[in-house]
């Protein structure tokens, strides 16, 4: 059983209150950082830990922090991205609901490391209960002297604010989040300049995911080197995975990175296998925006090595046979799931959430949705698959922000791996409305890799 760093005390009654959290060793990292360490040393620890951003892109957090510009006389900001709205991902909400002080503690330590005196937690608008929980937690921390002026007598001041968003997926993109935080329309900015140079109100800003900031707490408590011992290769530490779909035990699990996917799916400690004794058909490994993989490819890589839950192993094979870690929204589909319908559903989501700023994404997402709708309802054509692949290619990489890529990948990968199911939807249009294609060969063992002499 892997070590729990973030969810160690999750089952302690009353852990959402300051006193219980403190009695379980909470806020130790704040004390350690503010009393014994310099901000640079904190950044150094995070760098050593090899922590990678947990929001989806997997960019090393320490590196991001060290890029922060530090001009004289200009405020710096830390913004926590709690606008979690990816279909399939619900780890941040869980963290904020049950153990809000972990996030507050991480925010204090991280803000200290970055020299920010004002920090924001931008929470998605639909998460009103979590916003109240966080505000109560902030008030508690402030009453105990962990926030406000001269924290713990160290001379460091920090004000922490919770900002509810308007409930737009695009505001999870960091520059759109900053625009929204400034009170404008949540359109992503054109980069460069990156937020580390000119972010919130034109000041240097770091935007981090909830889980990344929470992970700073164990890193400071135990040291970056200790943290880096967990995990595998460049994927260090633990990761929250929000498992959903046709699983026996869906939920949020903290895993050591490097856990085999098969173990995660089938062991009783984690998901416990597929519900109702069905067989696995496909998996979306990291939230709706990452490529979908059929059962045989998610369990084994093309080289017949077991696939692990790590940034590298999941991406093994590139876009041809791999996927991505993403934000950890693990969705499993059993044999009764219709991939065409699912792809249409994702496309519908991206069509709805595209901000409409740049043309390929604005028009392309709608186009893909309409074509997929036609396919799903049995009016498709054989040429639609190639059309979808072509449209997704025209969107991918040509947009301002990664939403275009996120909209293109699930469609492109579904057609790459499940083409015969799409074709079946065209050739058996009437039947496709009434029943599903089933498992077909998607769980068959992969062919042995050819040995190249």
């Amino acid at each position: 059983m892997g070590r729990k760093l973030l969810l160690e005390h999750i089952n302690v009654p009353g852990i959402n209150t300051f006193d219980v959290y403190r009695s379980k060793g909470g806020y130790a990292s704040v004390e350690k950082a503010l009393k014994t360490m310099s901000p640079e040393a904190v950044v150094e620890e995070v760098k050593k830990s090899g922590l990678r951003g947990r929001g989806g892109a997997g960019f090393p957090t320490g590196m991001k922090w060290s890029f922060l510009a530090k001009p004289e006389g200009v405020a710096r900001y830390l913004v926590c991205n709690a606008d979690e709205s990816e279909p399939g991902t619900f780890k941040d909400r869980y963290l904020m609901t049950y153990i809000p002080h972990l996030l507050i503690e991480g925010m204090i330590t991280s803000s200290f490391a970055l020299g920010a005196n004002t920090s924001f937690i931008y929470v998605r608008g639909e998460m009103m209960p979590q916003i109240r929980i966080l505000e109560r937690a902030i008030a508690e921390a402030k009453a105990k002297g962990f926030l406000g002026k001269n924290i713990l007598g160290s001379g460091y001041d920090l004000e922490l604010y919770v900002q509810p968003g308007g409930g737009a997926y695009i505001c999870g993109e960091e520059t759109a989040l900053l625009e929204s935080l400034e009170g404008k329309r949540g359109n992503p900015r054109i980069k460069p300049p990156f937020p580390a140079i000119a972010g919130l109100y034109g000041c240097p800003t770091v935007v981090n995911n909830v889980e990344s900031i929470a992970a700073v707490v164990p890193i400071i408590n135990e040291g970056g080197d200790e943290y880096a011992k967990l995990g595998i290769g460049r994927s260090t530490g633990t990761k929250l995975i929000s498992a959903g779909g046709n699983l026996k035990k869906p939920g949020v699990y903290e895993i050591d990175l490097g856990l085999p996917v098969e173990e995660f799916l089938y062991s009783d400690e984690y998901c416990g296998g597929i519900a109702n004794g069905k067989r696995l058909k496909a998996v979306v490994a990291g939230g709706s925006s990452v490529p979908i993989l059929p059962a045989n490819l998610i369990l084994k890589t093309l080289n017949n090595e077991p696939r692990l839950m790590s940034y590298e192993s999941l991406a093994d094979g590139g876009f041809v046979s791999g996927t991505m870690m993403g934000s950890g929204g693990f969705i499993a589909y059993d044999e009764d799931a219709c991939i065409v319908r699912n792809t249409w559903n994702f496309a519908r989501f991206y069509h709805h959430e595209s901000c409409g700023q740049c043309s390929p994404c604005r028009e392309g997402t709608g186009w893909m949705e309409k074509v997929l709708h036609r396919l799903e309802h049995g009016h498709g054509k054989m040429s639609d698959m190639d059309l979808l692949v072509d449209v997704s290619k025209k969107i991918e990489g040509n947009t301002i922000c990664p939403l275009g890529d996120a909209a293109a990948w699930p469609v492109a990968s579904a057609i790459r791996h499940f083409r015969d199911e799409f074709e079946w939807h065209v050739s058996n249009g009437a039947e496709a409305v009434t029943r599903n294609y089933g498992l077909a060969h998607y769980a068959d063992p992969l062919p042995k890799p050819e040995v190249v002499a």
Partner: protein
Amino acid sequence: MKVTIDGIPVEVEPGTSILNAARQIGGDIVPPAMCYYSKLEGSGGKCRTCLVQVSKGSEKDPRPMPKLVASCRTTVMDGMEVKNITSPEVIEARKGVVEMLLINHPLDCPVCDQAGECHLQDLGFEHGAVKTRYEFDRRTFDKVDIGDKIQLHMTRCILCYRCVFTADQITNTRLHGILNRGDHSEISTYISKAVDNDFSGNIIDVCPVGALTDKTFRFKNRVWFTKPVEARRDCDHEKCKGEVTLWYKGEDVIRVTARKDVYGEVEDFICNTCRFDKKKTADWVIEGPRKVSHKSVISSNHYEFTPLPVVKTNPVLMEANKEQFERDTRL
């Protein structure tokens, strides 16, 4: 700083965008721009038609950029090498962008006032595919009068945001903006507000398509039947120089616009008095006929030279046709 675009080197000031560097060279290698407007700060980056490939980042860091970049918002680095029309990838991506832009465009050019001077027409003609693959209903909106002189035909809009930037930067107040998101986003005014101030007419000039049209000119004439003439008057508005283009039909001035350069950008913004109220020749000092590119449809019937005799053996004509042929078959 030295930057090479499609193999042509040019020296530019630091901080110049790739697009502006290309404009300094001029000619075919200038990427098309639908949303970028050099006079409006912050514009650009949205339409993605100006995508180029950076095959060499700079002298210091020669790595190519991983993705195509929007040339209007990417500043040049010393020693940068850019590929525009020499890169098949760029041509392909641009074709895709044009197709996307036209998905929800009504293509009602035959009844559109902008036809003949429409950037989207030019873009579609130069870079687009012959046929669309889009088989669904297009998004439609009702026409709205957003001021007493301006009509908004949202169906044609490509959401370039130019009029939003214009209202922010040229006029005193902005009363319109973008509502909603995705492909149902639309330009609209605050409820029961009309766009009404001294410079509001400029949003017609900056609109690359026929979404914002001059109500005093609507359905009066096709632009290629009019004759553009440069004129000037002493305008008492402090921000308006009074330098305009008059569009004549016979003896009547049927439209007044600002003077536009080769990239379709106005040289000086003009006030609404000049634009809408001064429509008599007597109001103006005529400076002479406006030069219109011979490639523009507006120049038809306004020959400044004797047309060449159409004889097959004419070497000049054959030479000209060769160029045209290469140009048409290039893509």
